[in-house]
Every structure is written in C-alpha cells, then in structure tokens.
C-alpha cells in the first residue's frame, strides 16, 4: 500500500500570537514551528498500517515555505519512508494547498491517505475534505479507530461524535481518513531515525509542476483581530452587609443580570 500522510506545520501551542502592525497577518518571525499535533496521530496510523500489512511505504507530504521541511524530517525520524515538499509561499489559501496535495497524491499514486482532523493554527478542518473531493475518494473524519480489511478493499472506521457517541462507518478503499487524538499513541522520533532523516532526500514540487500555475485562490485573508483584553475583576470591600449590597447593585446596574 502506498500510504500518504498530509502534514501541516503550525505554531507551537505555547506561541503568543501577535498580529502585524497593519492587522493583515500574524507576526511570524519569532514563532516556533511544530508538526501539527493531530498529524502525529496520522503518521503513527500510517506507520502502523504499513507495518501491519508488512508491505508498501509511508510518504509524508506538506505544502508551505522551506521551513516545513523540518516537519517532514520529524515524520521521517518517526519512521516515514519518503517525504515530499510542495513549495508554496506562506499565503496560499486552503483551496490551493488542498488542490496541490491532491495532485501530489495522484501523481505519486497514493492508495490510502491519512491526515489530522484539523490543524491547530487556523482550525478550519477544511483541507482533508477538499483533498478527498479532488481525488474523488470517500473520506471519514474524526476517526478514533480504524480497521482495514485483510484484502485492503474496505475499512471500518469509528468516529467520535460530540458527547462521546461512537459513529461507525464502513467505506471502500481507497479513502482518506482524518484522524483524532486517541486513535493511537504517536511514537517518538528515535535517535537513529533523526540521523537517517537528516540525510533523507526530500522530493520537491512547485505549484507550476502540479499544473497549478494559473490556479487562483478561492479565499483571501483580510485580517486578524486579537480577542479584547480581559478587564480586571472588581474587588468588593467593606463588611459582609456592605459587600452584599454592592454586589447586588453591580449585578443589577452593571451586569444587568438581575
């Protein structure tokens, strides 16, 4: 099986997001970039699938500027066999990125695709659906359990629905699975893996290579706004009776809840 994993590099979860002066974009210069945590589950599931069937290979693909190579190398260090970088600038929209990823999957004859259920930066959870559509494949999202049939012609997936309900789906293969936390425990990159990853040749495509030269984005980022700063709380002082009186007044006049 030619298992593909679609990866995105995202800001570290502890990054303090700052908007650029003109409000059009995010300040990217001091961001620490990591592999999207949900994609780690996708890599693990791909490796497990390859190892279970004892055949095929795992290829990781990411679209973005040169820095995303780091995320690809992390995946190789975990155990992926091949890595493909689709060179784009920082501003491509989800449509273009998804189209490019789908084209790579077609060109490289992917037979199964995994990705995380969403990227933790913009939380759009849009790319996986688009890629599946471009491939004309079925897709299952928020997968927490996957069982691929021995003949590799179908798979049973378990989805997690709000409130803990399990939703069971059966799909023919090839298919795309957008996986959720809990499907597995991603392995650590091993030390020999890191050393191997460093030497790994990474195949690159430009958008033009994929026939996307004239492709125009469907959406455009027009700006970012940070949430308003939280105001400091009000401290009520005085004796108990005075405090209660003041609290009731505030609830009535300021908060207008009673």
């Amino acid at each position, binding site marked *: 099986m030619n298992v593909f994993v679609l990866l995105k590099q995202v800001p570290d979860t502890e990054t303090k997001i700052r908007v650029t002066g003109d409000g059009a974009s995010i300040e990217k210069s001091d961001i620490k970039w990591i592999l999207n945590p949900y994609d780690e589950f996708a890599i693990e599931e791909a490796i497990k699938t390859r190892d279970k069937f004892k055949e095929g290979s795992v290829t990781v693909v990411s679209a973005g500027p040169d820095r995303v190579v780091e995320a690809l190398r992390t995946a190789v260090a975990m155990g992926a066999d091949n890595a493909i970088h689709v060179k784009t600038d920082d501003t491509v929209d989800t449509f273009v990125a998804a189209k490019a990823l789908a084209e790579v999957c077609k060109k490289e004859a992917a037979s199964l695709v995994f990705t995380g259920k969403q990227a933790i930066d913009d939380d759009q959870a849009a790319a996986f659906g688009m890629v599946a559509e471009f491939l004309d494949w079925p897709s299952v999202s928020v997968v927490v359990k996957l069982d691929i049939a021995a003949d590799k012609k179908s798979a049973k997936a378990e989805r997690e629905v709000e409130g803990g309900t399990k939703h069971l789906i059966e799909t023919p293969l090839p298919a795309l699975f957008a996986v959720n936390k809990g499907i597995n425990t991603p392995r650590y990159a091993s030390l020999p893996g890191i050393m191997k*990853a460093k030497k790994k040749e990474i195949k690159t495509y430009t958008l033009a290579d994929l026939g996307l030269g004239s492709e125009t984005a469907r959406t455009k980022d027009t700006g970012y706004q940070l949430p308003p700063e939280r105001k400091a709380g009000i401290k009520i002082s005085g004796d108990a009776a005075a405090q209660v009186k003041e609290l009731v007044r505030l609830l009535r006049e300021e908060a207008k809840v009673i």
Partner: protein
Amino acid sequence: MKKLKLTQKKLKNHRSMNSLERGLAGKFNMISFQLTEEQQALREMVRKFAQNEMAPNAAKYDENGDFPHDIIKKAWELGIMNIAIPQKFGGLGLGVLDDVIISEEMGAGCLGMCTSIAVNTLGLYPILLFGTDEQIKDLVVPFLEEPRLASFCLTEPGAGSDAGSLSTTAKDMGDHYLVNGSKMWITNAGHASLYSVFCTVDKSLKTKGMVCLAVDAKSPGISTGKPENKLGQRASDTRSITFENVKVPKKNQIGKVGEGFKVALATLDRTRTPIAASAVGAARMALEHSIRYSKERRQFNQPIAQFQAIQFMLADMSTKIEAGRLLCHRAGWLIDHGDAEAGVASSHAKRFSADMAMEVATDAVQIFGGYGYTKEYPVEKIMRDVKLVQIYEGTSQIQRVVIARHLLKD
C-alpha cells in the same frame, strides 16, 4: 587633506585583510554556539521523552526505590542508550557534545533515571576505547540488539577517590584470570549483564599493576549486595559486588596488563562532562519550577515573583545554569576535537556544574519555603538528587585537585 586621504586608503587596505575583517576569528578557530540541525532535533526529542516519560514518573520511583525498567526499555528503543558505539558496529557513533546535550535533557527529567540510562556508556567505554574490534563485536554489539545494562566497577570499599589503590585481584591462570575482591557503589549492579571490572595483578605495582576485565555478570562466584537505601537518585540501582574466585577468560581482557588505570581515566574523561550536563539539566528544572511557583505564590498581596529578593535569586540561578552549560558544551567540544585541554576543561565543567546545581536546588527549596521541604513539591527531590553529582565520578574536591595540578604543573 592629502594626508587624510592617504590614511583612509591605508585603512581601507588594512580592512581588506582577512584578519581585520573578521577580527581574531580570522586567525583562530571560529567560536560557534550554533548546534547542528541534528543536535537540535535530538535535543527536542530527548526533551520530549524526558518531560513526558521520565518527569511524570520521577516521584513514584523516588518514593518506592524501584528500578525503572519500563523507562529504560523505552530509552533503549529510542536509541538514547549506548550512543557512543561507532557506526561501523551499527551504533550511532555520537560524540561527547551530543552526549552533553542528551544528558542535560535527561537530567531535567529525572537525575536518578538519567544515571541508570547513562551508565551504560560508562560501562562500555573501556571496551570501545581499548578493546579490539573482535571484543567490541562480542561484548558491546549485543547492547544494540536488546535492552542490556553494563556497569563500571572501579570503586571499592577502601578505594574511592584514591582509585589507584584498589585491591580486587586478578590472578593469571594461563587461559583465564581468577578475580577476587569487592566493589562498592556500583550503578545498575543488580541489573547489568556485563561488568567492566578494574583489578590489580600485583598491588605493589600500584596503578601500573591494574588491568581492566569485561566480566559476564552471570559468572559463578559473583554476588551483589542489596540496593543501597540512598538519599537521592533513588531510581538508580546502586550496590556492592563481591567476586569470589570468578573465572574470566583472557579474551575478555581489555587493553594491556598495566593499562587498567589508563583505561579507567580515559573512560572518565569522556563521561565526566555529560554527568556535569545532567546536573545542569536538574538545575534548569529547579529554576523552571521556581519561576512557575513564584508567579503563583502570593504573599503581602502579590506574587512573590514581584519581590526583588526572589527576582535576584532567580536571576542568579539562571546565570549559574548558563555558565554551567557553557563549560559543559566547551568541554564536550574539546573532547570531541581531541584537544589537550579537554581533561581539565571537563573537570572545570564537572566541579562547577555539580556545586552550582546544589546551590540552585537549595535556592529552589528556599523559594518554595515550607512547601519546598515536602515531597508534595518536586524541588526537594532535585536537591537530594544533585548532591550525588558532587560525589560520584570524581568528587568536587578531586576535580579541584585535577584543576590545581594543571595550574601548578611546571
């Protein structure tokens, strides 16, 4: 005017000279603190392992004193153990600076576990440095095939800092040695499959009579004591070993007879700096806990981090940690480059980092106050753990002896 132009021209000519353009760096080796991409990746990976697997289990193993088999197995699977085995034997062939980077992260996770994991490198270095290819294949390569532990057996009940005075004997019996004696404070002794044992063939020859033998831990005549009930680093296994007429085949002799002391010192020259780095890691963790706690803990209506008394402690802790790390990185780099100053640099690193970590951990307990003195909070464990770094692999006093000897030599 003309004169000025001339001067400018002269200056320009000068500036075009390499030595001026690059300052002194043009003449000497460039100083770089930039880790390679691989080193950064391995630091990230070991940090993740240390923080997710070691740290959350540190208090448990500290309390019950059990041996962390599960953690060690995971460390082995990730290739964090036995890192010095050369690539031609299937290992990673990492250098001492790489080891320093790894050890700082493991020390930050749990110093006790770090000791048990790192001691394999100590136990195997004698063979890697002085063994034949055949011996490395026979004795060391199995460590790459499954999780195994090796111990370094130098110290004896009567020979600590004065390691040259050891009295475990190896009697030449033709095709084998007969080993008799006892060793003390041996890390992983109860779980190791291989011991690198330092013996004497003739005590009157002092250090010139020493020989290093690789001993199968299952050999008849070997008995280990019960685990020492230690103040700190309780996740590491420390025991005495007794050798009673233990037969060791001649093919397990590492290096020449009389070379044993040299083997021991050469090994310690390579492990001293990573040990120092593990103390830097423990100190870094003590600082991180202190920063977090001092922002949360409120006294006099404000977080205690607002007080300059606390701020100055944090600042001093941080400067000390930076200094320790720099000494370790430099010593590691010098060792990897075979520099003549490497030995004394590693003593500087070990002496400073061990004492520094003790100071920083003590300050961390102070910042935590009464809470810091209890096992509910993690800093008292760090204080107990780092104390050992001032003692093992050459006490802080012995490091000073080495440094002073270097200063005073003619």
